């Protein structure tokens, strides 16, 4: 038998196989693709009209008319990145495919890499139509943020991946009873991430917690760009550092849970 790659510690081919598996799934269902873009689009329409209304009733919003739309679009990046990671993992659980996957040479880190690529694809499919719609309906072009947008986008993606990977680890450990975490856990970050309001409005003790979260630095940074036209390097560096920490912790957690799954026989009997 001719193998393209055998015994390599990390194989891009196997990562590609995981991506292919999920792209085939998406290709086979336009409903899945439409669902990805559905909520970001609804959010943009709602928050867009709210912004139009507040522009004439709030001096804060009037100073930067797109601040709420920018926030909702970036929040969707975080939410979709988390969902893109955890839903792709849940697909393997729902289809009872994990045992088949892990009797191949696939390594957990390759599965994680494949899920990460899929999360990026799902996030772009989800938020890009909403971003374009915001230009058409409200003349708010988030791409005008330029390079800072890329910095915000990547940071929120990585936070979403860290949460998604953590959720996947919990679902692997505790079974399908924990699957709802894919949708609800990320919302625990929403009130203290300063998505729609500055961190300064929170009580001081809560501000301490908020500054431990990368999204708080991203959304604060977004407002600095939009209101003051400066890129806050301090917030950017903090977000990058915290993301490295949380993503590494999530990867270690997933590896640890995978080991526990091999100890307890969880890989053999998973599914609905």
């Amino acid at each position, binding site marked *: 038998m001719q193998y393209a790659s055998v015994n390599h510690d990390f194989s891009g081919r196997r990562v590609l196989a995981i991506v292919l598996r999920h792209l085939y799934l998406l290709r086979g269902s336009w409903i899945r693709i439409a669902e990805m873009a559905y909520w970001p689009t609804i959010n943009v329409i709602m928050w867009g009209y709210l912004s139009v209304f507040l522009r004439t009733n709030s001096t804060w919003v009037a100073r930067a008319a797109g601040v709420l739309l920018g926030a909702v679009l970036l929040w969707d990046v975080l939410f979709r990145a988390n969902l893109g990671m955890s839903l792709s993992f849940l*697909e393997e659980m729902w289809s009872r495919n994990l045992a088949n996957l892990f009797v191949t040479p696939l390594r957990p880190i390759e599965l994680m890499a494949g899920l990460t690529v899929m999360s990026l694809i799902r996030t772009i499919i989800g938020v890009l139509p909403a971003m374009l719609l915001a230009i058409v309906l409200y003349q708010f072009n988030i791409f005008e943020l330029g390079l800072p947008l890329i910095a915000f986008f990547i940071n929120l993606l990585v936070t979403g991946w860290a949460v998604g990977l953590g959720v996947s680890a919990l679902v692997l450990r505790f079974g399908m009873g924990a699957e709802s975490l894919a949708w609800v856990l990320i919302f625990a970050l929403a009130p203290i991430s300063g998505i729609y309001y500055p961190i300064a409005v929170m009580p001081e003790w809560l501000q301490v917690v908020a500054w431990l979260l990368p999204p708080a630095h991203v959304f604060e940074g977004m407002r600095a760009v939009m209101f003051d036209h400066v890129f806050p390097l301090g917030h950017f560096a903090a977000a990058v550092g915290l993301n490295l920490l949380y993503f590494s912790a999530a990867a270690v957690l997933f590896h640890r849970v995978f080991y526990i799954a091999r100890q307890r026989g969880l890989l053999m009997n998973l599914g609905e």
Partner: protein
Amino acid sequence: MLAIMHSNLVPVQGLPSPVIKVTALTKTFGDVRAVDAIDFTIQAGTTVALLGGNGAGKSTTISMLLGLLLPSSGSVNVLGHDMIRHRHRALPRMNFSSPYVDLPHRLTVRENLSVYAHLYGLRDVAGRIEAVTTEMDIGDLMHRHTGKLSAGQKTRVALAKALLNEPDLLLLDEPTASLDPDTGDWVRSALANFRRRTGATILLASHNMAEVERLCDFVMIMRAGRIHDQGSPAELVGRYGRATLEEVFLDIARARSSPSKS
């Protein structure tokens, strides 16, 4: 320790012998001792059955051979590699099929085979898919969703997946469970042809004694986590003074009698 003898098949060149070596293998789940200090070796080119009633420890043993489950103690060596620490070295040359482990239902058969061909790092993906499609006679199923197939069709597709990398060691969990007699017979013939063509080693868990008598050179019968008895099908039938392997199995499962001679 049991050393299963070569069959009259030509083993694959360059394969370590034994292909499987299990020593004092034990798995406990809480207070339950699912596998209890078993030892066995399987030589290249043989087809071996792992028999036993429900809960005897067959699936747990196969899971440990695949590296999906870590033993509580003991060692598992497959194709010359320690499956606890270096399972990735053996897995490219192994494969597995079970009716209880599904392929993704919403992918077509071709898509599933393509994904697994990439996972096994095969060079000629299209060529191998074509080969297993012919071998398992699933050409007319390639564009159908895997979840829409009948039990027999799913089994053939799962076996096609299991043969993609032309494994040196094939592990099968009840390969003909819930199949009608005609489809079951077809699957058994396909497995026999695969073995004849490649000289691969096959370990299968089955409840179908006729299947075991037809395919297997050697049988290990498990009860309560231990290998209770072993031998060729003919040896076991003779030793227990029974007419069929099924009667031997029932004797052991119900702890009804001892071998007439050991």
